[in-house]
């Protein structure tokens, strides 16, 4: 196998990025999805649309705005610099931020669907049994929404692994920090190292297929996306 240390470095980095992004998205996405599923506020439409934006925007648009916003002249970059953190472009932290934005709908939407599917009734029953809202959430909602969480985790993880454009625009191609597998493959192709490109690309193909197989194969007869 012609893969070298930099290829394995890229694989490890990609897995680290996808895991961390998924974890953050589950923490951030759950309250957002819960709110979107329950609220009657007029803000529901606008917030839902913002969350869904990465589905339709080209990664170049997200990458370009992130590059400007996180940079030393951007509003986020100015804030992080004022806090003494420096700027996060060209860093692993920057990629995590980019990935959280980019993969947000893939986590929030399955969760929102799962929460909506639960409906009012189990919550009302729990309330009559004097369960506190927190209690209800952890003992009623979470178990019922379990398939939604599984779908959200798998899609969030897989979509981050497949990320390319955003990383390309804010990463700077630094080994072991921002050079993920998709960028490494692009590099190999550009440098005419087709053998290495084949191994990595083939591995990505098999990985992606297995992930989707796990997703679609495990719950026959149900749409993987709508869940619950």
């Amino acid at each position: 196998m012609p893969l070298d240390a930099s290829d394995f470095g890229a694989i490890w980095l990609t897995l680290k990025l996808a895991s961390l992004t998924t974890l953050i998205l589950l923490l951030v996405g759950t309250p957002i999805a819960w709110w979107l599923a329950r609220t009657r506020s007029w803000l529901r439409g606008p917030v839902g649309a913002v969350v869904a934006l990465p589905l339709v925007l080209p990664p170049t648009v997200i990458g370009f705005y992130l590059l400007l916003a996180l940079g030393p002249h951007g509003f986020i970059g100015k804030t992080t610099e004022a806090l003494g953190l420096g700027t996060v472009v060209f860093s692993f932290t920057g990629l995590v931020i980019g990935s959280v934005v980019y993969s947000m709908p893939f986590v929030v939407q399955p969760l929102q669907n799962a929460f909506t599917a639960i409906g009012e009734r189990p919550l009302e029953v729990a309330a009559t049994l004097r369960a506190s809202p927190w209690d209800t959430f952890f003992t009623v909602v979470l178990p019922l929404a379990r398939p939604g969480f599984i779908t959200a985790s798998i899609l969030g993880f897989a979509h981050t692994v497949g990320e390319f454009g955003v990383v390309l625009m804010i990463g700077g191609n630094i080994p072991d920090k921002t050079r993920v597998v998709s960028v490494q493959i692009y590099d190999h192709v550009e440098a005419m190292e087709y053998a290495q490109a084949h191994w990595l690309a083939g591995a990505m193909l098999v990985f992606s297929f297995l992930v989707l197989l796990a997703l679609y194969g495990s719950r026959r007869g149900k749409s993987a996306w709508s869940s619950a």
Partner: protein
Amino acid sequence: MRMSAPRIALTGLFTLMALNSAWADDVQVAVAANFTAPIQAIAKDFEKDTGHKLVAAFGATGQFYAQIKNGAPFEVFLAADDTTPAKLESEGATVKGSRFTYAIGTLALWSAKPGYVDAKGEVLKKNEFQHLSIANPKAAPYGLAATQVLDKLKLTEATKAKIVEGQNITQAFQFVSTGNAELGFVALSQIYQDGKVTNGSAWIVPAELHDPIRQDAVILEKGKDNPAAKALVEYLKGPKAAAVIKSYGYEL
């Protein structure tokens, strides 16, 4: 025979189209990213003087090689080096004898901040920056030249952790122009016009610090029967194009 009005219009249109293709042809050109600004200026003159239309795609030389080998419809290739066109020639993907050097590139160390880069490039040795942007040395000849300069100045180790790579010279430039990297190695042509640096501050890297960036052009197999391809290559060798090329800081 009477012809209806739409019919006449249609016949006229087809005649025009036929005439148009007889007089003027499109030529599909793959252009190394560093040559973006000059080719746009040259294209205007070329279209005015010859009636042919130049359709340009911009990218890294290595990327173009892969695309050309896999059937991309390019007819002329303006590379950022001399090895890639030579390789294509040896593989029979070009029109024999069409290869020539159209420009010799100049490397510049550039910052978007005025006064940040001094005229001798001492800023590199001081090493007070966070990020030094270069083009991917494996795919872009200007990136390779940048690594040679760092080697020659014995700064490779000192700057290693600070280097960020753009996929091509345009992206290397973009990292600097957005302020995300304080400075970077770019093509002089990106920051130079009519004999001077247009903004920020720069050190024009002496040619002896890196291998010459000989940029070769070649007519590709797909362009062998296109008169516009031939016309473009001749045009690039002419005095009018030469003046434009020089005005962007290239040698000839």
